[in-house]
């Protein structure tokens, strides 16, 4: 979650990005606070100067590991998956080169995708998913 203070869209450089959490795991809190985010607080979805997270809230944030989630650029409608705790923030051409892992993610979580991303998300949207499902069906048979 603390990465959201650093992450910008690799294509259009928008910051901050929107975070949707699909699956989160609790882990031990650190004894001392290792660091505080300087600019943007994803826990409270706001600028640090406005939402002023307390040290306890920051410790709480350290104890939350996002296992699966969606990072959205509201500027260019690109979306980036968090899979197995790791954000995948590749540019379009590298995603198109090896799309299966991301399309499988989309297939798994499509019900939780915001409507505008399902419809006009880049580089993958409902049309890419439809093609993927057809391809997958063919592979099975």
């Amino acid at each position, binding site marked *: 979650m603390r990465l959201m203070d650093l992450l*910008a869209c*690799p294509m259009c450089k928008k910051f*901050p990005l929107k975070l949707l959490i699909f699956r989160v795991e609790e882990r031990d809190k650190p004894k001392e606070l290792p*660091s505080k985010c300087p600019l943007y607080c994803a826990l409270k979805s706001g600028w640090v100067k406005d939402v002023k997270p307390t040290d306890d809230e920051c410790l709480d944030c350290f104890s939350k590991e996002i296992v699966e989630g969606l990072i959205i650029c509201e500027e260019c409608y690109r979306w*980036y998956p968090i899979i197995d705790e790791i954000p995948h923030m590749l*540019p379009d*051409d*590298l995603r198109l080169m090896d799309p299966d892992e991301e399309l499988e993610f989309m297939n798994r979580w499509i019900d939780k995708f915001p409507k505008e991303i399902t419809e006009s998300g880049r580089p993958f949207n409902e049309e890419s998913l439809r093609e993927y499902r057809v391809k997958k069906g063919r592979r099975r048979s």
Partner: protein
Amino acid sequence: MSVLEEKARALIKSVIETYESIAEGFSATRKSPWIEVLKPLGDVLGKTVLDVGCGNGRHLLILAKRASTVVGIDPSRNLIKIAKTRINKLRLVDRAMLVIADALFMPFRRASFDSIICIAVIHHIPTKKLRRRAIIEIAETLKNNGLVVISAWYRWQRRLLLEVLKSFFLKLVNKVFEFGDTYMPWSSRGMKYKRFYHLFTLKEMEDLLNHSQLEIQGLKLVAIGSRRWMNVVATAIKR
């Protein structure tokens, strides 16, 4: 994109694909960090550090002992997975984080890191134009007065003589972009792979950094390990 740029981009894709295929074997040969290259970075106590092209995370793990936050990026999903396993094993999850990303499309806001390292990565990027773009992305991501350490394989070492000669002839027949470009073999499980390298000179590294907001602080050859593998290492500050 021009035809030349498309060719260069395709070459980068093939380097990534190769790393995806050889990730495990490659990682096994890259266990120890290049301490000699990390030295100019100084103490990173309390700092936010970025490792561009972190591979299996060998430098990340060392930096996470002192830095408050270390982020590693690499376009190879398989190498990032290996790095993730090592971070978990060493219980460094509070300080070390990973992102699958391309150095030419940096996924970070401007001026987000105190220090950046980019070790043995830039020589995988073909053409001066794309290497300059990578350096500009690095400079943008760095805070003002932040420090960056960049290393690349050195061209004029005896063990690479054949590669350099090969590169000269490949350039003559226009099979590579520039003199210094070569394809280094890697064998794994009976398969042969080739990775693109642009072997660096000191002058090239100097020119590269002079095209950005980075001000060179140090530029030298560093011999690494018992085999004395020669690398061009530059230290620079963002102004």
